[in-house]
């Protein structure tokens, strides 16, 4: 099994956990509470598929692997009584982000812009939400919430977007956060396919 298949299998396993665990182990349902299973299922794919070197082969075929777990999470969220239209929008946006990030990682590897792409990915995908979480956790309770600009920027990260969706009990429609996260993914793709040194 190649590295991409191994990574995809691990992402798939983590992605299925929010829907599979409560079905086989009762306390998991209470632990997950009201969090959106759809956003939880999307989170591992958004965190992994764009990582430099993650999907060097067949990015579309790899991205397609995320769709059945998202469909299962969609069904569970619908069972929790969540509105279908916002759920459909979140699903579509998550799949679009996974595809864009997969293509970006593949494009960066093919064009030899791995290093620039890696820095940009590190900053925009895991970096901003981690920075915000660190500041808020480290500064609590005296310093309160992170500055608003950081809150907005971390929400534009695909990971931050999915995380805020996990916490929300009422998923919203295509708000500014969704468009910003899509724009970040598209920017990473554009950066990855910019003319550069061709891979040997």
């Amino acid at each position, binding site marked *: 099994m190649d590295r991409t298949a191994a990574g995809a299998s691990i992402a798939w396993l983590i992605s299925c956990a929010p829907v599979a665990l409560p079905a086989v182990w009762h306390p998991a349902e209470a632990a997950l509470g009201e969090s959106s299973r759809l956003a939880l299922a999307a989170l591992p794919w958004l965190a992994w598929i764009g990582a430099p070197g993650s999907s060097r082969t067949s990015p579309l075929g790899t991205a397609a692997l995320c769709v059945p777990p998202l469909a299962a999470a969609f069904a569970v969220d619908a069972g929790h009584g969540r509105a279908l239209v916002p759920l459909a929008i979140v699903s579509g946006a998550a799949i679009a982000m996974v595809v864009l990030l997969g293509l970006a990682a593949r494009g960066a590897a093919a064009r030899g812009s791995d290093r620039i792409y890696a820095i940009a990915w590190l900053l925009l995908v895991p970096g901003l939400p981690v920075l915000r979480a660190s500041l808020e956790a480290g500064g609590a309770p005296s310093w309160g919430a992170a*500055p608003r600009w950081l809150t907005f920027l971390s929400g534009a990260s695909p990971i931050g977007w999915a995380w805020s969706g996990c916490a929300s009990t009422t998923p919203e429609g295509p708000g500014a956060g969704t468009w910003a996260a899509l724009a970040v993914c598209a920017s990473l793709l554009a950066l990855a396919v910019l003319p550069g040194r061709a891979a040997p």
Partner: protein
Amino acid sequence: MIAPVILAWLAPLVPLAPVANGNLARWADVEISGPVRDLVISLGSAGEARLAGELLPGERQRIAVPLPVRDASAAVAPQIGWTPSAGADPESAGRGSARFLGYREDRASARIEDLPPGLRARTRPPIGPVEPRLRAASLALLPACLVVGLLLRRRSGAALLFALVGSAAVLFLGWPRGAQPGRKLVVLETDAGSAEGLEVTATWERARASQAELEDRVVESSNDAARIVWTRQLGSGGELGPAGEWTATARGSALWLLRALARGAGRDRALAETWLREDGEWTARGPWRPGQPLPPPVPGPPPPGWLAAGLPQGIPVLVGRAAERSGPGEELWVRETGFRDERR
């Protein structure tokens, strides 16, 4: 003959009304001056009220918040905290302020206390968590989707097509079917000899109500250890969000909202199913429309055990389920002791 024996055995399993006289939605007044963000008014382990949102610098507001007071005789002043605005000095005078003004008179509890003890002591509707889980067939399909997806991964078109077909199958097999029963139970408790009745609304872990509705109700929980958290949005411009509702959450507990009712409140509803207990025997009576005589006995199952248990002996009792539902997963029941069919 067997039904009364089974019901007698079931009776201890049905939750009894709690004896505490507290109100988990006891109203208190708080005066806040901006800048204040994400206000938390806490009663420690009992719970708290949270107002999400922000009051801007210079804005001042007097607001009413529900607080989970479990013991009415020992209502203590809450602790108040909030998130300081970004960059504000936590020690400065411009940090904003919030001051507890006191508890309001608990009129809802007083009205409930005025009801006959028999009505107040009736068993509360049992309600459990609704846990929509993925169906086994849908769950079993997921690994198959992974294996085939990995095999087709290098052929993008085929992989995408299979992902769509597989997802459609997962959705079809896992889609929740039918309303989730028992998400909200409303029971109208009445007694032929009492001028007032009691409305009990039961939900699991979460209840929503406007301020006007809550001012008229007493809130209880099935689990005394559950921490009650009331939340509401603090709207922009320092106003409480228009038409906003308070939401109570209590992990691992049912929430009961109690309200005193005028007698006959349940009589104007068409009942889809009715049961009558006479001489210690329950008989099913089928559907009953208002204004009609109670139908004669018909073959049918006994009433739900939680409605038939814990009732006074030796008097007729009517139990019925309303035909209309005011929302998905919502059921309304009526239960009247000392029932007499005035049309017969």
